[in-house]
């Protein structure tokens, strides 16, 4: 993890568990397990089993977490829950559902 002057940057090969990341965070390749994402930009990496509360998902893999709110631009939806707790299967991203 580094601070590039504009915010927090998470990089390839890093792994975080049960951490909370605010609107200044950018993920460029880290694996996040059971983390909270609150407004930053998710460009690459893995979001696994956590809570995506807000922000932009523009790349990377979403697996088993809750997509509460935010903008799904692109990425791989391997499976996960919407804000009602309903599971959506592989390929059924918030972008294709238009639910957020």
């Amino acid at each position: 993890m580094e601070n590039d002057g504009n915010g927090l940057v998470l990089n390839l090969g890093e792994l975080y568990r049960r951490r909370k990341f605010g609107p200044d965070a950018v993920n460029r390749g880290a694996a996040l397990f059971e983390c909270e994402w609150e407004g930053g930009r998710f460009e690459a990496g893995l979001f696994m089993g956590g809570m995506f509360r807000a922000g932009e998902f523009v790349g990377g893999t979403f697996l088993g977490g809750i997509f509460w709110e935010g903008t799904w631009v692109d990425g791989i939806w391997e499976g996960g829950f919407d804000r009602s707790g309903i599971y959506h299967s592989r390929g059924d991203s918030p972008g294709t559902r238009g639910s957020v």
Partner: protein
Amino acid sequence: MTRLLIASPHRYPDLARLWHRFVMRDLVPAFTRLHLEVEVNIFCDANAGEFRRELFPGICFSASGPGMRDFMEFYDGTLQRTCDFLLFLDADTFFLDGEWAASQFEAFRDPRVAAISFVPRKGAPAIFALLCRVESYRPLVAPVFACRYEFPEIWPEGINLQPGDFAARELLRSGYKIVNFGAEEAGQHIANFRGTTGIRASREQIIRAAGEKAFQKSVAEDRACLVAAYDNVLLGCLYEALCGEAFACDEAGVALGGSMTLAELRGALEDLRDGKFLEELRERFQLSRRNILRMAEREGIALAIPALLANG
């Protein structure tokens, strides 16, 4: 004639070959003797092209696609297949005693019995080896079997229902019964491994998204992953002895490179300093060793298992 469908989602053909051996030799004949018409289905959740049909005689294959995009949708899709009873059997769950399994079928004489759970999760019915009466399950609100996250607004304190949990709860509320075997009794008749497919799929996903280093860290910090890695070592021993091929290879063909190689696993264990954690692992590893040796015995072969931890 009453129809039984035995169905299982698989990602890896090597594990599926082990599963297929035990199902076709032990389960299918035992249930057929009950005058059931038995069909066996493998759902290829990934790598469909690698499942060489000639290695799986007697199997009906299905693959992921619209309406059945992954294993979660496979459960509900399969519920709509033509059958009266449905046995979901995980890819790494092996009945050692088909007669015992079939002898439980008489529980369905009681019309209130909706299912038999042969392997529990934390003492409760689970989908690992679940024999369902389909007419009890079909009226439930869809998706019947998919996992759910209840009370997501209080995450992470909400309830993460695993596949089949919601259906079980609805059935019990409606006055149905689920015969639920405890771990001890199940263990006498079933060799059950956990997460052996999950760690292989995780490796693919984590490395693709976050690199090799992140994967190695994720396993080293997680007891369930270390156990799954060891279970793959054991399944690999059996697979190599029976099929003459390396198990869980990576793209370069390295044995166990698609899970965790023996050297990687040893390295991760050597870094552990928590004595209690190590002791828990040792106990769980011993259980897995007993299971693989029972499977080998059922196959009539002797198995050499490499030592892993100090003192075996």
